[in-house]
Structures are given as C-alpha cells and as structure tokens.
C-alpha cells in the first residue's frame, strides 16, 4: 500500500507541474488569445536554468552552482520570461498563425541548442543529479512523496489564486476587450501590444517554472524531454479541460497526465518487447481519440469558459 500511495503522490506531483504550464498557456491563449506553440521551449529554458543554478558542479555541463532550489525556480521563471520578452517583442504584432510559426521555431531551436551546445547543457546526455526537494526524506518514500506533493500543491495554489485575481482585474478586462475587438479597445487608449506582451511573458514564466519543477522532481533532464510532443500535451490538457478557465486547466492536466501514464503502462504490459518503441506512438493516438471524444460531447472542454466579471464590480438591484 505504501508503494501505491507514494506512487500516487509522485503522479499527482508531476500532474500539477504540468498544471502550472497549462495555467500559463491558459493566460496566453484563454485570456489573451495568443497562439503559443512553443511551450516546450520555455519549459526547457526553465529546466536548464534551474539545473545550472541548483546542481553540484560537474565537468559534463556548465553551471553547477549548488544554490538553493527556491533560487533555481526563481531564476527559471526570470529566464523564461526574458526569452518570452525577446520572442514576443519581435512577433506579437503578427497575426495568430505567424505567431504560432515563430514560437514553434523558437522552441525547436532551443531544443537543438540543448542537444548540441554540449559544454553548456551536457548535450544528448543532459544534466543528471539535479537535487530534489526534501532529499533528507529520501529513505522514507511516502513522507518524501507527500512532502513533494505538498510543496508543488502549495505553489500551484498560489499561482491559481494569483491568476484568478489577475483575470478578474482591470488588467484582465483589457485583455478580454482586446480579444473581442482590438480596434475598439485601442480607440479607448489601450495599447494592444503592451498587454499582449505582458500576458505572453507571465505565461512563459509559468512554463519555465513548470520545467524547473519537473527537472527537480525527476532529478534528470535531457533534450528529448523538450520535443514538440510536450507542447502537444500541454495544449491537449488545456483544450480538454476547458480553455479560458483556470480550474479547467488544472483538471485537464490531471486527466491527460493520467491517460498518458495509464496508456503507457497498458502498452508496456500488452505489447511484445520488439513492438514497444513503435507502440509508444499509440499513446498519442489514444490522447487524440479521447480529445476528439470529449470535444464532441463538450465542445468547450470539461469545464468551459464562464463569463468573467471584474472582482470589484457587484451588480445589485438591476435586471440582468
């Protein structure tokens, strides 16, 4: 039982790290309508920066400052935000499809840099021995798993509350207006690029944090973790859970990560060894089928977007 419980803790921990990335994407897509197809790139930036800051010095890669994990996560968010500011300043003027191409290109480029800049990143072998939070508990798996889960749950809760506040604030109101009618919002003095860039940067910082947390919980990163399939997973989580809704974003992360893990376990058990590698593609097929099924039944995702009203506005005694 302890084995199962500590496994469930680990499962939930990883699912919530995905949840943080999905929350970031929901701010970009759900609130600002920005079509970012480079989630994996920002997660990679966060993961490598956190690894450099927190890991012990090693000859195989750069960094290794052995600093506290909290600093690693803060650095990861800053670095991802900085990367997003550069990409965003250059491209947010573009229409949706061009932004998609640019972010996709940026993510692929970053992945190739991670693969080839061996002196910095350790190349294809990645960075190992990234310290885990609560390492002193490592010999008691259940306590270790529970402590990690509590940590990531607390971080997720803080981010959730912060984002709910933000989307219900005057700032979020401007984003909703820009999404509905950019020309009308601009005619009322709202600078479209400024607000979009902010949403893009904050969202990317969360993706960087998600990458950093995953690096820390797995203890190992490699360029293979940041292929476009990661972007695909995060998008499926958001669309399936309900774009435009932070609760939906978290629910989607847990459901899709559950399906992903379960389908992986089933395939491993059912397929003969020679077919395992090819069979892995069936996971994507399974996720795609589930997504199509959910969208047929619930076109707006499991929890769709609700009309957001600014938190300070209370309508009383009027007909609605």
């Amino acid at each position, binding site marked *: 039982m302890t084995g199962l419980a500590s496994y469930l803790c680990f499962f939930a921990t990883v699912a919530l790290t995905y949840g943080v990335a999905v929350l970031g994407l929901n701010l970009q897509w759900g609130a600002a309508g920005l079509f970012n197809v480079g989630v994996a790139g920002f997660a990679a930036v966060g993961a490598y920066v956190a690894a450099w800051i927190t890991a012990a010095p090693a000859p195989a890669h750069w960094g290794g400052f052995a600093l506290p994990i909290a600093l690693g996560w803060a650095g990861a968010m800053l670095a991802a935000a900085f990367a997003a500011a550069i990409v965003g300043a250059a491209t947010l003027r573009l229409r949706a499809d061009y932004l998609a191409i640019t972010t996709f290109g940026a993510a692929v480029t970053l992945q190739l840099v991670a693969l080839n800049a061996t002196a910095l990143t350790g190349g294809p072998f990645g960075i190992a021995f990234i310290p885990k939070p609560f390492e002193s508990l490592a010999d008691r798996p259940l306590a270790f798993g529970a402590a990690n889960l509590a940590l990531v749950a607390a971080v997720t809760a803080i981010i959730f509350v912060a984002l709910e506040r933000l989307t219900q604030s*005057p*700032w979020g109101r401007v984003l909703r207006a820009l999404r509905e009618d950019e020309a*009308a*919002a601009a005619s*009322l*003095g709202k*600078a479209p690029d400024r607000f979009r860039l902010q949403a893009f940067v904050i969202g990317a910082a969360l993706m960087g944090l998600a990458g950093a947390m995953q690096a820390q919980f797995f203890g190992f990163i490699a360029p293979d973790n940041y292929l476009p399939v990661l972007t695909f997973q995060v998008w499926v989580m958001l669309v399936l859970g309900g774009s435009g809704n932070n609760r939906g974003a978290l629910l989607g992360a847990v459901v899709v990560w559950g399906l992903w893990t379960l389908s992986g376990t089933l395939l491993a058990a059912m397929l003969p060894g020679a077919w395992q590698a090819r069979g892995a593609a069936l996971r994507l097929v399974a996720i795609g089928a589930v997504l199509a099924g959910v969208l047929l039944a619930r076109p707006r995702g499991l929890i769709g977007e609700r009309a957001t009203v*600014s938190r300070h506005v209370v309508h009383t005694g009027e007909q*609605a």
Partner: protein
Amino acid sequence: MLELSGVTRRFGGAWAVDGVSLHIPPGRITGLIGPNGAGKTTLFNLIAGSLRPTAGAIRFEGRDIAHAPPHRRAALGLGRTFQIPRPFAAMTVLENVLLAALHQRGERAFANWLAPRAVAAEERRNIVRAREIIDFLALGRLAAAPASVLSGGQRKLLELARVLMAEPRLVLLDEPAAGVNPTLLETIIERIRELHARGISFLIVEHNLDLVARLCGEVHVMAGGRLLASGPPEAVTRDARVIEAYLGGAA
C-alpha cells in the same frame, strides 16, 4: 485644438484625401459633410489614427499626432466612436464603460498583487463615475446586461458612454445618426448639446444634414478628396458648389 495642414492619403493611384487643411477651434461642434466618396471617412480615420497620412501634418493641441497609434491619441484626449458601434458584446454595459477609464492602476499586472487595496479603491471610484455616465445616457436600467442585448441606437449611446469615461477634450463622432430611430436621435442630439455645454468639443461626420444644421456652428464640406467649402451650416448648404457636388456634379 485640431489642426490639419496638407493632409493627404493615397490608396494605390487614387487620392482619397488630397491636401486638406483645416482648423478646428476648441469649444465648438464642427461638422464634416460631403457626398458619398468625398473622402470624409478616410479623413476621419486619419484623425482618429486607424490610417496614417501619406503626407501632411495633424496637430492636436499643438502636438503632431499624424503617425501616433490610435491608443496614444485616445490617451491624449482625442476620443472617437465608430459608424457601426463596436461594443464588447460579452461584457456588461458597466464593464464596457469601466474599461475605458484611462491610466488605471489595476491595468498594471503587478499592482493587482502588490497593491490590491489601491486597485479596489480606484475601481470603486471608477464605478461611481461610470454609473453616472451610464445614467446620463439613459442606459442605467441596462448596466448589468451584456452589451450584446442592446439595440442599435443603445449601442450608439454605449459608445458615447465609453468615450466619455476616457475624459476626452475632443470627440470624433462617425455618423451618430445612422441607423438610429427618431426618438433616440433626439436623445443623442440633446446629450451632445449637454456635453458641449460642459466643455467637450465635437467633430461630427454625418450624412444627416438636419442633425448637422441643428448642432454644428461650423461645417466643412468635402468633395473628391478636397475641402470644398467651410462656414456656418445655413450658408454652406446654400453654396452653389456644394449643391452641385451633392447633385452629382463633382463626379
């Protein structure tokens, strides 16, 4: 207040607006009329910022705004409405108006985390002001309704309410009478007069000569991309060149 000199806009080989110079003094309601295709709407868009001139200068209160983006012009005190109203349909009437307040502290993302009380206090003040404006424009009963339920005329009133929330000194109105029933049109005319009395200047682009004659102290007439005549409405509408232009002579 608003000064245009040699403003020109070319689309391909056609000169939509060709060297227009005019001066709009503060404290007036000025009209801009002309037959279809005269270049009124293009000139309006050049002043509002949705188009940039090919040549010429546009100065608002002494500042050259010819190449400033629309949001900067709005922040300088130059408001506009749209010919076909563009409400934020999914938001309530109150939120449509609240949005338009300029320089809100709560529009800075971090202020919502670091100074939530200041944001809340500012929002409360803005709500009081927004409700006054909504009541003034006879939309009070609909404040909590989504803007999508408003009729065409009510949408025009909402556009005016939004612009007022941004505290402009000059408001550009693009065909305020188009598609509005006669009763509501009287409301609109009366409200424009009232706002003018409070010190807001207007520039009105309009087909409805009756509205122009009743509101405007001075009228500019455009035809074929050029300024044809300027003066008080009763004089301009009797001008032989203007009559010819309206009857198709300018083609």
